[in-house]
């Protein structure tokens, strides 16, 4: 059956309408994300609690998240594995009884009750109202008590001189550092570098969002599927959760 001119006209009209609609709405959606981002003058609030869900079923042997973090924050080492910093690392697990293997990224778990913050004598280790645990490099005295206290080995001490630092992620020789959940990106309405890299080059195993927001994908995923907090027995209420453990 040959196509009627009227159908062709209709299709063109619909196509045009969709294109026009997309062009009209897309910037709006994009700008809405930007609008959601916090301005510098705006205080961080506890209405949001940033969190990360790791789906170990989608996590392969790749190191896209680690590479992206290293690039984003510039924690390139000196080929001294024992003293080089690692803000995020891939951990391989093997169940002793069944032999089942799991690969997953391990980093600061952004506890609601962070032991590192409790033990820090100067308050350099602190938790933002939105749940991100950070180190104030200006008042860290380098005592390393937080490293003793962290159950996740998430923190590193800067053992030697630094070069080529990233302006958005300042580091300091003689101070302690760890995953910042890419706070500079989150405050600008973006995703952490590891999450972006995992979506692009990995298995899309990382889901970032507001744990407090019932509409957020992470909240809904946590409400739908079982998930685990590492060393949940410690009662630290972690911002990072794992699925498939």
């Amino acid at each position, binding site marked *: 059956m040959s196509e009627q001119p009227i159908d062709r006209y209709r299709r063109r009209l619909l196509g045009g309408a969709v294109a026009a609609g997309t062009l009209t709405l897309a910037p709006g959606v994009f700008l809405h994300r930007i609008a959601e981002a916090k301005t510098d003058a705006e205080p961080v609030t506890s209405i949001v609690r940033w969190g990360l869900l790791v789906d170990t079923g989608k996590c392969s042997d790749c190191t896209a998240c680690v590479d992206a973090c290293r690039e984003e924050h510039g924690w390139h080492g000196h080929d001294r594995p*024992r003293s080089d910093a690692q803000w995020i690392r891939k951990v391989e697990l093997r169940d002793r009884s069944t032999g089942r293997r799991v690969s997953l990224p391990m980093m600061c778990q952004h506890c609601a009750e962070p032991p590192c913050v409790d033990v820090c004598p100067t308050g350099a280790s602190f938790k933002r109202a939105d749940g991100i645990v950070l180190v104030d490099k200006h008042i860290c005295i380098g005592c390393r008590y937080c490293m003793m206290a962290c159950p996740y080995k998430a923190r590193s001490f800067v053992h030697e001189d630094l070069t080529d630092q990233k302006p958005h992620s300042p580091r300091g020789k003689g101070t302690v550092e760890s995953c910042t959940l890419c706070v500079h990106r989150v405050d600008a309405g973006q995703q952490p570098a590891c999450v972006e890299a995992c979506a692009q080059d990995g298995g899309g195993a990382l889901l970032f969002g507001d744990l407090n927001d019932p509409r957020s994908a992470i909240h809904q995923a946590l409400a739908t599927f079982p998930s685990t907090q590492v060393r949940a027995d410690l009662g630290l209420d972690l911002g990072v959760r794992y699925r498939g453990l």
Partner: protein
Amino acid sequence: MRTRFLEVDTSKGYLLLLGLLGALLAAGLGAAWIMEHHGHHVTGMDNQIVWGLPHVFAVFLIVAASGALNVASIGSVFGKMPYKPLARLSGLLAIALLAGGLMILVLDLGRPDRLIVAMTTYNFKSIFAWNIFLYNGFFLIVAAYLWTLMDRTVSEHAGRVGLFAFVWRLILTTGTGSIFGFLIAREAYDAAIMAPLFIALSLVYGKAIFILVATGLFRGTGRELDTSLLSRLRVLLGTFIAAALLLTAAQHLTNLYAAEHLAAEMLILRDGGSITQAFWIGQILLGSLLPMWLLLNPAFRGNCGALLAACVLVILGGLATMYVTIIGGQSVPLELFPGMEISSSFFDGEVIHYAPSLPELGLGLGGGALALLVVLVGVRVLPFLPDALPSSAAADD
């Protein structure tokens, strides 16, 4: 008979010792400079063993400091008159040991230049922050105590200030032990017993160092010393060692009983190589059982050599104990996923072997040298030492 206190003379031996200790202190400061200049990668410490040999020395000296005050407390608080002539030296030694320990601790910081931050910015949930108050308070209170002991116009307050200093030192050692007791995720720590254990250890180390320093000063300056007074301390020291052993046994037996701590215990008690050796040979055999035998065996009563040997052994054993506690405790892998084997590029699941470096040893010995220097200079410039302690002064209990 009234005890006379006199400053010591600057003999050739005194100057030689002063020079030696000064050189050791300079070496320690040099070591600290190397560590700060190049960064901590020149040490044996890393992101796995974050506290190393400097902390072994520092915690030992700080724990010993509070114990060294005990001789003064026996006189002032418990009313044993024969010890009163030694109270001044006891207070001086306590301050000196604390100064030595804190020097190490501060110079091992990643940013020692930020000491002022540590002194002005506090997080009161941190036992470290409390310890800064406890240490500074200890300096002030013991200084005030020494003042009441040395100035007759205020001597009426000696008893009260002495009691306050005694209570303060108990709290201080509780704080030091709690540094480890409050580490929730480390299998080898995270136990309330760390505080009383550290108090028992402080009584042991402080007393042993006191006996050695007092004997050295009296003999070195030609002062008469009735060794029967020091011998009275022998039973007390032996008893304190037994108390520390009992608490150590309770600590390890409790952990052995719990399956979750079994791996950590096995590492320290059986499989830890140098850690295990430090525990059984250093802490238990040389640091506890042998000195107890030397101190409590009636055959050695009145034998000054046996007493001094026991004190030296206690100090070596004390350093071994701190090594086992601090290095051994960190060597135990963190149990992130119970029941799973874990591996990573960050040494997860691996027993970490620590090899101390020369700068760390230098800094540790430098702190010890500072403590002895403070004592040496102290007894030269102020009348801390009795001119003699003949047997008549030590007659009554």
